[in-house]
């Protein structure tokens, strides 16, 4: 499955609203700006392209995928948010950030008039996870901060691990069978 994000959709929307994609991880609904998502793929369609990696310091990443000559690190949404582990069926491949996120399902797209700032009372990791909250049909839904899935330090560690995987594969490929 592939859902391409239509740029034309953006122009149709009023400037006073923002398009969000609602998605679920377990029983929890999250929102992410539609503009922040490059594409949505099924995990099955990416399975053959995914390379396994295991890094004790970044346990939420267990795979990487190459897309358009870029390496994307696949983050488990469950592990990232500390939720009960599920079997994700979709991958959100983010735009401009080398991160893909495993999620369970897409609920729908919505236009919201306002994203509320995260209250100052929240002082934990959620300040990196969320850029705010939206109130929609009697639900408060956290709005994801796309660059909050991996820190620059985590990217650096993953890049080092990725290079060593690549080097190992090249070496294995060079060894005659």
């Amino acid at each position, binding site marked *: 499955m592939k859902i391409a994000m239509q740029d034309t959709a953006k122009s149709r929307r009023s400037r006073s609203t923002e398009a969000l994609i609602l998605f679920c991880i*377990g*029983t*929890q609904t*999250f929102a992410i700006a539609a503009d922040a998502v490059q594409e949505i793929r099924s995990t099955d369609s990416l399975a053959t392209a995914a390379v396994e990696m295991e890094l004790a310091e970044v346990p939420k990443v267990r795979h990487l995928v190459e897309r358009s000559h870029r390496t994307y690190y696949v983050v488990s949404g469950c592990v990232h*948010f*500390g*939720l*009960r582990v599920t079997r994700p069926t979709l991958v959100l491949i983010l735009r401009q950030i080398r991160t893909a996120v495993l999620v369970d399902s897409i609920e729908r797209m919505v236009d919201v008039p306002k994203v*509320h700032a995260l*209250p*100052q*009372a*929240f*002082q*934990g*990791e*959620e300040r990196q*996870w969320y850029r705010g*909250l939206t*109130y929609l049909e*009697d*639900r*408060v*839904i*956290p709005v994801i901060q796309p660059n909050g899935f991996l820190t620059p330090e985590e990217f650096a560690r993953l890049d080092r691990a990725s290079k060593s995987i690549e080097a190992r594969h090249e070496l294995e490929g060079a060894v005659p069978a």
Partner: protein
Amino acid sequence: MSGAQNHARKSWVLLHVGNRRFALPAESVMELAPPVRLHNFPHTSRLIAGVIVRRGRIVPVYDVAPVLCGRESSVHRFYLIADRAFGTDAGPDATEASAIPVNGECELATGEMQPPQENAPPYFAGTLAIEAENIDVLDLQKLVSAVRDNPSATNHAEPRP
């Protein structure tokens, strides 16, 4: 009556948390909200039970019962919404509406705040002698900071979905 005495003798909102009464300065209290839906999402902030929506605003809810009474309470269905200051000891930078689950029995009282009892936790700003009862006055800012700086004060260490 001097200016200082006038300041000390002021209005307080008395609230029930668990089976104890506490006081908050009346000027910091915005409203007693009826039972409304408590919304939750993953976070790691201690003491926060979720958020409620009141008058178009998203208000964090502090579950203070485990800290003040040592256990959760199921009778807290109303929310007392008060201003909580943020900033340093030098002075608050900003305030934010914050909610405390209460049982709905709140009353207004006038009294003079006395210094806190010896060995009282830092989040008790003082005491009020009302109806032969010594009621601790809460300092919401210090209560929350105490839990943040001393995680053993509560059990909420895991992300709360």
